[in-house]
């Protein structure tokens, strides 16, 4: 089982065998979801280890481990209907199987890169006890994973775009939609890391809110501070 998983992962990362661009689509999707789950849970657990290794706080590891795949998969599920309809209207419905593989593959790549970066996160956690630094480190890891996943995006989207240039626009639509919903999803699912000074909770009582409203308030405060009139 483990051997099969690792073999599939290797093929996916290299884009060979079952995961070669021209290979048949059947049977790929379940592997991709398995990567999202495995990579997400692993990185989430490491992410939660900042505060979760203290006695009585082990459930932070479980909470964080569950939240990373939830963040990706629920965001994916919310954005999929509109992406599907917009693709259909754009006349790209026949390619949707491949499109689906590409976007799930992107998420699988994000989580696998995150999982690979987990030891670095753990090392940085071990060398610094500042919560703000932990938040920053994770931000950098997610940004790195998202940027690296563009390799998979390009790999699977290149033949689609060469067939029909509209796929490029659709890809931008997907990224825009996914990031827009994903930011709010991440905001709602806080805390991911767990502040060591606060009790372990699945949802933070004061976290229920809107990330964009908070950003709007921040902009206003900044403007007021810069132009105090």
């Amino acid at each position, binding site marked *: 089982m483990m051997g099969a998983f690792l073999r599939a992962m290797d093929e996916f990362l290299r884009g060979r065998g079952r995961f070669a661009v021209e290979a048949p689509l059947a049977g790929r999707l379940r592997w991709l979801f398995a990567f999202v789950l495995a990579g997400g849970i692993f990185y989430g657990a490491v992410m939660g280890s900042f505060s979760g290794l203290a006695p009585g706080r082990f459930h932070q590891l479980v909470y964080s481990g569950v939240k990373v795949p939830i963040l990706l998969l629920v965001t994916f599920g919310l954005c999929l209907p*509109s992406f599907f309809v917009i693709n259909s209207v754009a006349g790209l419905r026949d390619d949707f199987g491949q499109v689906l593989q590409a976007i799930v593959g992107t998420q699988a790549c994000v989580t696998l890169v995150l999982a690979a970066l987990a030891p670095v996160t753990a090392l940085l956690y071990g060398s610094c006890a500042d919560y703000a630094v932990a938040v920053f480190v994770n931000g950098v890891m997610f940004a790195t994973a998202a940027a690296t996943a563009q390799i998979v995006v390009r790999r699977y989207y290149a033949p689609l775009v060469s067939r029909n240039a509209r796929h490029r626009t659709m890809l931008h639509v997907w990224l825009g939609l996914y990031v827009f919903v994903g930011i709010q999803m991440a905001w709602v699912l806080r805390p991911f890391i767990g502040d060591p000074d606060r009790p372990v909770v699945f949802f933070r009582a004061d976290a229920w809110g809107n990330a964009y409203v908070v950003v709007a308030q921040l902009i206003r405060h900044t403007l007021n501070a810069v132009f105090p009139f």
Partner: protein
Amino acid sequence: MLQWIRELDDLLRGNKTKPDLLAAGTRHLPLGAFVGLGLVLGVLYGLCMGLFAVLSRSAPCIQQLAATAVKVPALFFLTLVVTYPSLYVFGALLGVRLGPGDMLRLIVAALLVNLAVLASFGPITAFFTLSTTSYYFMKLLNVAFFAISGCIGLAFLLKVLERLEEAQAVESGATPPADPPAAAPGQPPGLRIPWPGPAKASKARDVFRVWVILYALVGAQMGWILRPFILDPKLEFVLFRGRQANIFLDVLESLGKLLGGR
């Protein structure tokens, strides 16, 4: 219902708007099924939109949920009722070849595409409603979703129209539209043959382009008349609000209020 879903799927995929089908007219577009589907999709999005009135206040306002579920499809179909006559009359005056039935079927099809895209945003609206207390954010989010789906629906309409022109031009054996033939030197102007085939067909597109602007403006104003859709948590439920200001000023004001942290 399954048959309706198949019809919708065919429309979205473009199977119903293939040039060879359009060459024979628009009779293959089932008006009844499209209207029924449009109503269902409108109600679905209305439920997602009206959820804010249920979740944002201590006493859930179920009336607003019901009202929004009715108002969203009403908004689209009333806009259609208001703008269709002008489309038909101007189209007929300018010599567009499409008959009134063809025009109606075409714009109902575009309306259905508009509603399908809007309804597909429903889960995102519902998710933001669950986690947002800012009325102004929800208002702007909904305005954005209506605008995006409206643009897609109208782009679909113009695209189908283009295909229809091409199909009919091929059907009538006409060459692609070109500049009107200039009168030969020495030929009296009265002898110029202004054969209207393709030249007239391109008029259809012009008429529809102007109509699209009219439709968007009327749709926006219709939305304003039918408000509240979301219901400000500070206000009580009423079916309709009085006449004041307009939607464009209100959107700007909402943006200001959102930046003001409300």
